[in-house]
């Protein structure tokens, strides 16, 4: 009844080794726009369209961990932050951590208090490997380039007005910009 289905090819587990990561870090950076090609960006579907759920593996703990003290190759790059924002909403991060990163089901990402460390690699590992209290391991779902973009965006949440990286013309971002959850007590 609760059996797991086979992963779709595009969700194949990509266990990266320390060597592979180093190679990534030294590689010339890809254009940020190309790196998000793994997550298709449909236009807003018409009523009646049903998104086909990716019945992939449950993203639990178990992917290997990156240990080297590398810097995020996308840190502070506006294009990467824009992609990170897109992924932050698209991969449902926003529902746990809040559209503004202020927390909810998951911890606040803006308060400088990092349960599992706040370095670039710590944040990468938290996303890539998952954490024990319900943070999925996205290393089995996303290519590492996108995880670095997400990590760059998560860091930006805590350091600058991240909203300047929100791209225009997407309904979810327009909605988010107008309001913040639970404004009632402000």
């Amino acid at each position, binding site marked *: 009844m609760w059996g797991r289905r086979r992963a779709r090819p595009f969700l194949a587990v990509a266990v990266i080794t320390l060597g592979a990561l180093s190679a990534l870090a030294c590689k010339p950076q890809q254009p940020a726009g190309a790196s998000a090609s793994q997550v298709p960006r449909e236009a807003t579907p018409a009523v*009646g369209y049903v998104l086909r759920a990716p019945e992939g593996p449950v993203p639990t703990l178990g992917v290997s961990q990156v240990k080297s003290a590398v810097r995020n190759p996308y840190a502070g790059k506006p294009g990467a932050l824009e992609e990170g924002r897109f992924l932050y909403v698209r991969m449902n991060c926003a529902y746990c951590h809040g559209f503004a990163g202020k927390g909810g089901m998951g911890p606040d990402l803006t308060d400088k208090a990092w349960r599992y460390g706040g370095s670039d690699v710590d944040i990468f590992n938290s996303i890539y490997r998952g954490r024990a209290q319900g943070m999925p391991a996205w290393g089995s779902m996303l290519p590492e380039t996108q995880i670095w973009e997400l990590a760059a965006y998560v860091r930006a949440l805590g350091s600058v007005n991240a909203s300047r990286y929100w791209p225009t013309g997407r309904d979810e971002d327009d909605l988010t910009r107008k309001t913040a959850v639970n404004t009632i007590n402000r």
Partner: protein
Amino acid sequence: MTPMLATFRDQRLRAAAAVCAIGALATCTRSEAAEVDLVHRDRTPGAWAIQGSDYALTRYSALNQITTANVSRLKTAWTFSTGYTHGHEGTPLVIGKTMYLVTPFPDKAYALDLTRPGTVKWSHTPAPNPWAEGVACCDVVNRGWAYADGKLVYNLLDDRTIALDASSGKQIWETKLADVNRGITMTMAPLIVNGKVIVGNSGGEMGARGWIAALDLGSGKLLWRAYTTGPDSDVKITANTRNFYSNDRGRDLGATSWPNDAWKHGGATVWGWISYDPELNLIYHGTSNPGPWNGDQRPGDNKWSSSVFARNPDNGEVKWVYQFTPHDMWDYDGVNENILADLPMGGRTRKVLMHFDRNGYGYTMDRATGEILAANPFVAQNWSRGIDLRTGAPIVVAEKGAHQGTMTNDICPSTSGGKDEEPAAYSPRTGLVYIPAINVCMNKGEHQVQYIAGTPYMGSNFPAIPAPGGFKGALIAWDPKTAKEVWSVKDANYPLYSGVLTTAGDLVFYGTLDGVFRALDARTGQVLWQQQLGSGIIGGPMTYVGPDGKQYVAVLSGVGGVGGVYAKTPTAPPTGGMLYVFSL
């Protein structure tokens, strides 16, 4: 079997007090366990053996030492720290000389010795999977625990139901019911009926598929499981099912009222309360919002989300089902408690259930057939223009729908509902229901979301805004015969998230998110007594008779849950975890 009228008039469980008074403590525990009879509640005066006081979930107590005349002298008798500071939503149970508590995650159980108030007889610390903490939508709460046949039974957040020996705390059995990695948790209070433990799942925000299940009280063995979406065979809709309204009739509506196979992640979880009518042999339970929250991804009625089921507890078969909010776009779960009573209506006695839905309507329904006898709003609402009593359907205001690519402003109630799971109380003496209400509105806009196991499946942004009337919460006294408010006590600053207790002393007890525990006159609403507690109150108050023969009132103070979001103000007391017990 005792006729329902008599049963509901006699709301008390008769304790094995006589046996206990002369026995040694160990003997007493065993005999009091054997003598609690959940059906014939009048055998155990002074006990509180079911979360809702009785199978009808009245939260009424026939105890009357504490009255409108003397409640002003109520004082703290003793306290107990649970050691945890997440939301404390449950109600303490008292059987004989023992009180039972279960904390929020990690769901630690305590048995407290009432002969030495505040001391621990035993405790049990399970080790639920910490993954559950991250996939529980609305804090890591436990909404209640159950007692029968010498066992304390409750759910762990990581989808296990466990039974403990109530005299020792030793675990007797555990049954794993779902995979927490898929975003399914268990938070609801089990109900024990005919030797069966009835449980249901949470995860309506995570694309879970709702179910309700029965376990054997003796062994924990799974006896049946019924889903709330999908084909009739899964839902246990059979040739014997008789739905009152034509909107709810048809083959496999739990699948065909969804596009493609969207029902497989369609929510309709069973995280609220279950009541039981021994005479009709029916249990009543609601279902949650559909998933995802973005309704544009699931055109159709999305049955059986936001619905109420009447089922045979022996096999799960559906007697009738009614959908409160077809194609919910506002998170109007139908899980709130269904309180049972026999009321004079239209010149005869009707067996009714009374339900105060998140959608803002108070329903009085015939619980044998599912017919709505009366339905009116109890808080500000504007998503509909009323319930059509001929068809059972709400008359939906199209402009208040929530859709993709746009923000719909000023929808009432908010996603918190006109009332959340915090249970109301019904007094057979006044004939009134006391509703802990939430008066908050929202703006709401949707966007496309994809199902990813273990992550939220919502696609919605829903900032709360103030509601008409200038208040956020109210304790409403409601006449279920006419479905009309009689009086209310308004709270300007906080919605109500506390359960309610009413007693034969004609008192109503409830608490607020900023930690005020209060007693009202059940007939007038006059505030007769109140005390500031250490943290906000989201649990259910109860009352019992102690070994000294005195009446006590108890409540857990520990803000959290969804209500905790509203309590994050500069002046509200912080989180906590403390039991307070009061007496004259």
